[in-house]
């Protein structure tokens, strides 16, 4: 029952906040929302504890019958029921734990906003949807949560709806993710029509059963599985901002920083990873798709890293970084390293939330200045935030000992030998790590070292609420890697691993560990002018500007995907819409309008306010009536 109650704390809080929106004081509103989150975090902690102590490796609760998909009674039921196993336990602890900390931060961060209650209400609603997504025991309920988080993402990106850019970003996010969602929905339909079941456990067991049996899949069934996996991947790609559908994520940074931290770094964007991990049974029997996943992840990893190198906006750097880290997770999933992927998901949630929140604190201190070329020298001015930011960055770079090190090394370690990955992808991962360390250093140098390039007085917020949240996150980032994740029970292996004859080369680990240091070393010299306090030279401030090289601009604009889509999709669609503007249906509609308008004009003419005219019309009517009756 404890499990069942989990999503209801934030739900109740959401309802309260929405109903009494402006009548609540800041204190009360934040007490309600953060309190509800604290309760959620507490309960999920209890649940994880309970799960680890229980003999069975899952807890499930059946709330109520929703509907049946099949016409036969009690067939293919869709119920509102929750299912908690190791994978979802990781997810709920991330969602509720990090969510709670970000709520705590947000309560302080958004204090002065006029619509504070609405903001917190959306945040709570997001948590509700995310928990439903994670805990759903069937794919329909999962899809409900999936769309719920999409809705909340839309609402929160467009939270400051008076700004046009925010609204456009919200719309873009909504539409782009909708493409993935549509693909996912089709995948679900296909799944149901092929296997007649949508319950996750049932589907998994069905497929495993058939796949492991002597007979194996028929040709038709394997084709089905291939397409289902591909379509589900489409959904995951949309939600997790992977390659073809990644363009919405950088724009989504227009939302308030806590939103970026919670939704667009820690939780929602990893829903795609969660989906693939959850449906791994399907993917296991579609090795081609696994391969696609791996390659998709690798390419995203590299491209996003490249884009991050050229950004000028601190949040956009982090956004591309998020993209690239999720590429890592996808790479892991594609290589069959399920545990490593999920582990990276968790650690990434910690340090990326920390990075975003710290960046938020910095932005707040600089009066909403987000351009890193207008920062510099903040290490001396904001030592606390800088220290935390450094912690986040070394986790991101995966320096040994940090949580990022454990998870990323786990991924890289499994790549070389994986059947669906291989040495090529291993090299991609290494280059990705190198890029990560280079853009991290660039960001750090630009923002925190060098001369001060801002003029306003710093606005230093010393809210203990904010700071404590940041501190906890920093501790989690540093030591989160020590949490041992054992998800082997959750993830199914097709058969005992064959002993691979080719042993991995011995230099692999050395290179993997050395890579970040190489990156740092490279940056130390290459970005010297970012790092050195150039103030001393002649006492004249040299203004640093972002590189105006064409390639740099190309990278800054997200490697031209936006313009590509503009040419490929939007322009043709607009052309079609323009052509379609005067089609038959429209003309029919317009003729109705024209007809109504015509009668309006006639009636207006008749209603001329002239009494004698009315009387004459009256007389004419009587005359006509009598005339008709005579004839």
């Amino acid at each position, binding site marked *: 029952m404890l499990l069942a109650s989990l999503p209801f704390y934030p739900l109740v809080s959401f309802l309260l906040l929405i109903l009494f929106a402006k009548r609540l004081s800041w204190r009360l509103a934040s007490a309600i929302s953060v309190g509800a989150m604290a309760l959620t975090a507490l309960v999920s902690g209890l649940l994880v504890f309970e799960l680890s102590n229980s003999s069975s490796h899952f807890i499930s609760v059946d709330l109520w019958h929703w509907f049946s998909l099949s016409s036969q009674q009690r067939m293919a039921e869709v119920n509102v029921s929750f299912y908690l196993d190791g994978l979802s336990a990781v997810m709920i602890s991330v969602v509720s734990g990090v969510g709670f900390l970000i709520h705590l931060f947000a309560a302080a961060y958004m204090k002065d906003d006029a619509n504070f209650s609405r903001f917190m209400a959306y945040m709570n609603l997001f948590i509700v949807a995310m928990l439903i997504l994670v805990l759903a025991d069937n794919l329909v309920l999962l899809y409900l949560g999936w769309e719920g988080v999409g809705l909340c993402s839309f609402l929160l990106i467009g939270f400051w709806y008076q700004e046009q850019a925010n609204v456009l970003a919200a719309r873009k996010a909504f539409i782009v993710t909708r493409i993935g969602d549509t693909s996912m929905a089709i995948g679900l339909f296909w799944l149901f029509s092929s296997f007649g079941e949508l319950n996750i456990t049932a589907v998994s067991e069905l497929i495993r059963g058939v796949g492991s049996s002597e007979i194996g899949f028929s040709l038709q069934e394997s084709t089905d599985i291939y397409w289902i996996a591909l379509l589900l991947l489409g959904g995951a790609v949309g939600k997790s901002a992977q390659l073809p559908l990644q363009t919405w994520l950088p724009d989504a940074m227009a939302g308030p920083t806590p939103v970026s931290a919670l939704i667009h770094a820690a939780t929602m964007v990893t829903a795609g990873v969660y989906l693939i991990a959850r449906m791994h049974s399907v993917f296991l029997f579609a090795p081609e798709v696994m391969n696609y996943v791996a390659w998709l992840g690798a390419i995203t990893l590299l491209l996003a890293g490249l884009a991050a190198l050229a950004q000028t906006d601190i949040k956009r750097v982090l956004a591309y970084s998020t993209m690239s880290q999720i590429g890592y997770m996808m790479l892991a999933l594609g290589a069959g390293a399920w545990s490593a992927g999920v582990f990276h998901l968790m650690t990434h949630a910690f340090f990326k939330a920390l990075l975003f929140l710290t960046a938020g604190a910095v932005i707040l201190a600089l009066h909403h200045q987000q351009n890193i070329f207008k920062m510099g020298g903040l290490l001396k001015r904001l030592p606390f935030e800088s220290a935390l930011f450094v912690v986040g960055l070394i986790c991101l770079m995966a320096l040994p000992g940090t949580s990022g090190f454990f998870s990323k090394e786990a991924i890289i370690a499994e790549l070389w030998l994986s059947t669906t990955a291989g040495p090529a992808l291993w090299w991609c991962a290494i280059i990705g790590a190198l890029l990560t360390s280079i853009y991290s250093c660039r960001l750090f140098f630009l923002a925190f070292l060098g001369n001060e390039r801002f003029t306003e007085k710093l606005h230093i917020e010393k809210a203990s609420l904010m700071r404590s949240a940041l501190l906890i996150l920093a501790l989690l980032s540093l030591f989160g890697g020590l949490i041992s994740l054992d998800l082997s029970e959750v993830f199914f292996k097709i058969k005992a691993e064959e002993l691979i004859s080719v042993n991995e080369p011995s230099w692999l680990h050395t290179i993997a560990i050395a890579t970040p240091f190489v990156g740092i070393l490279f940056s130390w010299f290459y970005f010297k002018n970012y790092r050195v306090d150039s103030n001393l030279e002649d006492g004249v401030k040299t203004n640093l500007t972002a590189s105006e090289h064409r390639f740099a601009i190309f990278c800054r604009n997200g490697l031209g995907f936006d313009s590509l889509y503009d040419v490929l999709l939007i322009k043709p669609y607009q052309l079609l819409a323009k052509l379609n503007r005067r089609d038959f249906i429209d003309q029919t509609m317009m003729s109705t309008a024209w007809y109504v308008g015509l009668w309006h004009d006639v009636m207006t003419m008749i209603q001329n306010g002239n009494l004698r005219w009315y009387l*004459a019309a009256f*007389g*004419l009517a*009587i*005359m006509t009536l*009598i*005339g008709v*009756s*005579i004839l």
Partner: protein
Amino acid sequence: MLTDLATIDSLFYLAATVAVIASLKVVTGSNTVHALLYLVVSLLAVAVCFYLMGAPFAAGLEVIVYAGAILVLFVFAVLMFGLGKDETINAPKSKSVANMFGAMLLAFALLLELTVIINNAQIQQTLQANVVSSKAVGIMLYGPYLLAVEIASFLLLAGLLAGYHYAKPDVQGSQL
């Protein structure tokens, strides 16, 4: 006594002619008070018709109420509020028949149709000089028509209130 058939008939037609001519003068006149006088004449002629049609009570009412009260009210309003004065300003500029042509056409068509209908109905009745006594009218009024009488009384009350309300001077205004 004046019981000669021909006399009564010719009297009726005379009165009818007077009524029609007077009504025409009412409609076409430009002097308000003259028009009112013609209207009185028309009403009196109609009253004579009523009398000759065997409804002396109605004839009496026509003179007392219509000519004696309602039209006096008209005259009173015209005198007191100068309602007759603007005719010269706002009357149609040309007093020619053309101005009324449309209305006359309409009315003529209406009249033609009505006559055709009445003619088609093949009414064979002739009027009877037997007087429908006022007693019978009274019995009717307070018998089957009681509700109508009540409604008429409400109507009169409404007319009284509305007349009072509209015609009283504005209290908050400058006048009075």
